[in-house]
């Protein structure tokens, strides 16, 4: 391992600039002569645009230009795209309505983009926007999933507002199992709509370089190359080789910054029109209105068990709200990232899932930390819990009885779990948590008039996204490999150019740890370059917990190539046969002799090429690799939530949280734990606090931090985080990935604990004090009677 190698919990290299306020986020970037963009947004959830009069705005002080959808259409530049084609049960392709950057003829959600004002100052742009007159013909808004299919049609191509009606699994086998089941558990579940809310709002600076007829875009993106690909190939703004996209320091993403949105697209297009840089930043209200939201499923689930308490089948029927337009990956989230995870950690012989995806007049919905896997885990972990209670079995024992124990395990829903030991995580979690002590802690709480509950969540997820051929066959428009380039400099320092992007994950440290470990060089001699399409070759970016499993595997492969070349150079330098060169801890030695050369010497020799003739061995020491995973990875574990409820107020306090996760091999345990902590907080937020709510007219009534309850330090406890390890067999480092697991595991742990505390069979999220209070009344009366 070494002090700075793989497995070391070292502090991060990148922190200096963040703790001193010298980070470089997009809104910190200012370009000479820049103008400012302000978007006029629809105040109506659903309306026809009869006319837009921008004349008064155009002549307002400081205004450079005002553009509408017609201006963009006139330039023959395309609309925003969804990159994953899903087919319905009948084989028909999904109904993808056009998604113009500025509305054409219709607005479809409050916040939808109607026009953009570009002015010398932001204040002038805002003021001028108030002078734009839009004549709307308001239409009825479709807000509720329950009524979406009978509501006013939102897109011409989607009758009954159906995007697709999809399924996966063996319905016949499932129906058969249910027909002969000893017991059937049924559950209605809502996976509440969330707003990702990274602390940095989105921002963009678009610039046109006239001399070279090329575009530059600074954007808060998790994947600058994908942004360039979409803006270039699908939207047609400029060919890729004349389009530089830079995602510098980005303040969190959680999925919401994967997508290509209207604003950055308009900024860079407008910069070319007005021949000045155009800067835009999102205020928080705008972020609430038009960042892609997450989750929003309504599900009916049924679980069949036999006389021995073994699960024989699961069937699930879900309505998924995709919002007013299809965001970049929206279609994949409630399908292939959801149903294939419904087997959970259990050996379930038959599974069938059907998903009806619907348009509504709400913000587009797409991937948010976990993307489909939190939805799946909520279903399986809630219904397994309910089944255990209905059968009178201990929830941990019921799970244990049904765990997969033989690997590889082919589930009935595509996923083949490679390796794992679910019993080990459960056992370790129970030990760390001291579940045996729960009854006495509960008695203690009750003696003070409080209810106490304990809940499990045994989660598994599929990440390390993803094998290109597999996702291609399922409808993805892109491959999901990753790229890396290892550049050794003449005096031996190393630059890693990675297609991954760090927006909080600490890659500048963890990736450097890998290099330091493999090459035996000081970690300070390694720098990680990411986020600039001019510097880094094509890459697919960071999401789906893939930077370790996929991004680092690409670096590993490139390092192997570098080592092989370096050995060739060393052979020339040390005048030995290549087969006799050994490389360890930064030193090249000749087997059986004390001839040696250090890393720096060999690097220099590679570049001065004095010791070899350039025909048999090229000068230089720089290699590139693209890594395409052969499988998803399958992090899994157990979370245990223990909480107290005050039945007089419904207030829930989380008293204890234990997480035991199997992420395979770890590079930096401190960073891994940090990812788990952050994920748990988001899951607690979903379970107890958060919820994006639209009223009947499609107005988002939770559009600020005053109305949308973000988790604060006082809402969460300290967490106990432990690990078990079964290394991933499908990548050279044995990494499974850890970025989303906390958010995937936690919501069912909270709701299982809450329902355990208040004895109420089903509580929906967010389990606000009001909901918990109502549920607790029955329990309170019982307690009083005792």
């Amino acid at each position, binding site marked *: 391992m070494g002090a700075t190698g793989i497995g070391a919990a070292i502090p991060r290299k990148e922190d*200096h600039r*963040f*703790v001193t306020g010298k980070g470089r986020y997009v809104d910190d970037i200012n370009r000479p002569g820049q103008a400012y963009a302000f978007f006029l947004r629809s105040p109506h959830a659903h309306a026809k645009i009869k006319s837009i009069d921008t004349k008064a705005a155009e002549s307002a002080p400081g205004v450079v230009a005002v553009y509408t959808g017609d201006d963009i259409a006139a330039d023959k530049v395309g609309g925003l795209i969804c990159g994953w084609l899903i087919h319905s049960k009948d084989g028909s392709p999904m109904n993808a309505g056009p998604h113009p950057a500025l509305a054409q003829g219709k607005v479809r959600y409050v916040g939808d983009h109607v026009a953009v004002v570009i002015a010398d100052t932001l204040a002038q742009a805002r003021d001028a926007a108030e002078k734009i007159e839009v004549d709307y013909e308001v239409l009825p808004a479709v807000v509720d999933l329950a009524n979406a299919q009978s509501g006013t049609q939102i897109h011409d191509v989607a009758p009954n507002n159906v995007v697709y009606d999809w399924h996966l699994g063996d319905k016949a086998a499932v129906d058969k199992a249910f027909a002969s089941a000893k017991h059937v558990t049924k559950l209605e579940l809502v996976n509440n709509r969330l707003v990702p809310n990274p*602390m940095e709002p989105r921002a963009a600076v678009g610039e046109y370089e006239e001399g070279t007829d090329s575009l530059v875009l600074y954007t808060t993106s998790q994947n600058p190359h994908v942004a360039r690909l979409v803006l270039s190939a699908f939207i047609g703004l400029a060919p890729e080789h004349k389009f530089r996209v830079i995602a510098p320091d980005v303040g969190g993403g959680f999925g919401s910054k994967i997508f290509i949105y209207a604003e950055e697209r308009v900024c860079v297009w407008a910069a070319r029109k007005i021949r000045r840089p155009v800067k835009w930043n999102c205020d928080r209200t705008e972020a609430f209105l038009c960042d892609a939201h997450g989750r929003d499923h309504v599900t009916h689930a049924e679980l069949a068990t036999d006389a021995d308490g073994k699960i024989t089948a699961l069937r699930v029927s879900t309505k998924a709200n995709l919002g007013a337009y299809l965001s970049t990956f929206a279609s994949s989230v409630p399908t292939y990232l959801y149903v294939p995870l419904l087997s959970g950690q259990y050996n379930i012989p038959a599974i069938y899932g059907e998903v009806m995806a619907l348009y509504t007049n709400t913000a587009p919905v797409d991937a948010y930390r976990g993307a489909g896997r939190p939805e799946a885990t909520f279903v399986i972990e809630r219904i397994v819990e309910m089944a255990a209670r209905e059968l009178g079995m201990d929830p941990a024992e019921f799970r244990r009885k049904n765990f997969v124990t033989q690997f590889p395990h082919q589930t009935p829903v595509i996923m083949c779990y490679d390796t794992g030991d679910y019993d080990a995580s459960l056992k370790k979690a129970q030990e760390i948590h001291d579940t045996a002590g729960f009854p006495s802690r509960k008695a203690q709480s009750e003696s003070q008039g409080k209810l106490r509950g304990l809940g499990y969540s045994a989660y598994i997820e599929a990440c390390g996204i993803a094998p290109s051929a597999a996702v291609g066959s399922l409808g993805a428009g892109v491959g999901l490999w990753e790229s890396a380039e290892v550049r050794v400099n003449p005096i031996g320092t190393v630059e890693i150019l990675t297609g991954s992007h760090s927006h909080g994950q600490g890659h500048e440290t963890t990736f450097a740890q890998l290099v330091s470990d493999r090459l035996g060089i000081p970690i300070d001699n390694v720098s990680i370059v990411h986020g600039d399409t001019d510097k880094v070759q094509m890459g697919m970016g960071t999401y789906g917990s893939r930077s370790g499993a996929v991004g680092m595997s690409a670096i590993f492969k490139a390092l192997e190539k570098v080592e092989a070349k370096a050995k060739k150079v060393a052979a020339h330098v040390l005048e030995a046969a290549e087969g006799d060169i050994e490389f360890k801890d930064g030193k090249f030695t000749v087997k059986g002799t004390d001839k040696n050369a250090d890393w720096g010497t060999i690097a220099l020799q590679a570049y001065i090429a004095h010791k070899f003739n350039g025909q048999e061995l090229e000068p230089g020491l720089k290699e590139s690799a693209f890594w395409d995973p052969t499988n998803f990875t399958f992090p899994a574990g157990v979370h245990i939530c223990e909480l107290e409820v005050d039945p007089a107020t419904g207030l829930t306090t989380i008293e204890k949280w234990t997480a035991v996760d199997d992420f395979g091999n770890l590079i930096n345990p401190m960073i891994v734990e*940090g990812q788990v902590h952050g994920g748990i907080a988001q899951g607690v937020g979903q379970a107890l606090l958060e919820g994006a709510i639209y009223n009947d007219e499609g107005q988002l009534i939770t559009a600020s931090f005053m109305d949308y309850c973000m988790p604060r330090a006082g809402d*969460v406890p*300290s967490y106990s985080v432990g690990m078990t390890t079964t290394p991933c067999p499908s990548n050279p480092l044995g990494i499974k990935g850890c970025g989303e697991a906390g958010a995937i595991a936690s919501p069912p742990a909270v709701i299982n604990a809450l329902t355990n505390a208040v004895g109420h069979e089903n509580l929906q999220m967010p389990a606000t004090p009001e909901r918990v209070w109502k549920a607790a009344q029955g329990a309170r009366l019982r307690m009083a009677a005792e």
Partner: protein
Amino acid sequence: MPTVSMNVNGRQRSADIDPRTLLVQFLRENLRLTGTHVGCDTSQCGACVVQIDGEAVKACTVLALSCDGSNVLTIEGLANGNELHPMQEAFREHHGLQCGFCTPGMIMTAVDLVRRKGNNLDEKTIREELEGNLCRCTGYHNIVKAIAAGARNMASMPQSKAAE
């Protein structure tokens, strides 16, 4: 346009500004001190916390003109040259940050917390006092650890540096 003049991180700074200019805008746009961040529009997130005349204030909620003649300390002024302030060092050591966006505000709030409540802060106090600072990345666990450690380490700082 009126002129505003204040001492920022030890230097006298002035500019002619639109009277609507918030302090955070003055710092970020007029002075190009971009370490103070804007994360919301309702004064909840705390990414904009600075010190005005020795007390923590959310710079998004105060007009620059009302700071005329004041002493303002931002995150850029906290370190002593290349030597990090103990609170900055504690955040780094305890992994109290991930994306870094809330971090300047967290650190400025933490330094003020020590001024108000002393060097021995328990977990409950720290969590309560962070009500005005949101973080989406860390889940707060390591922020709490960092603040407790930073508070202890501030005890051995010369007093004049701890809350300038």
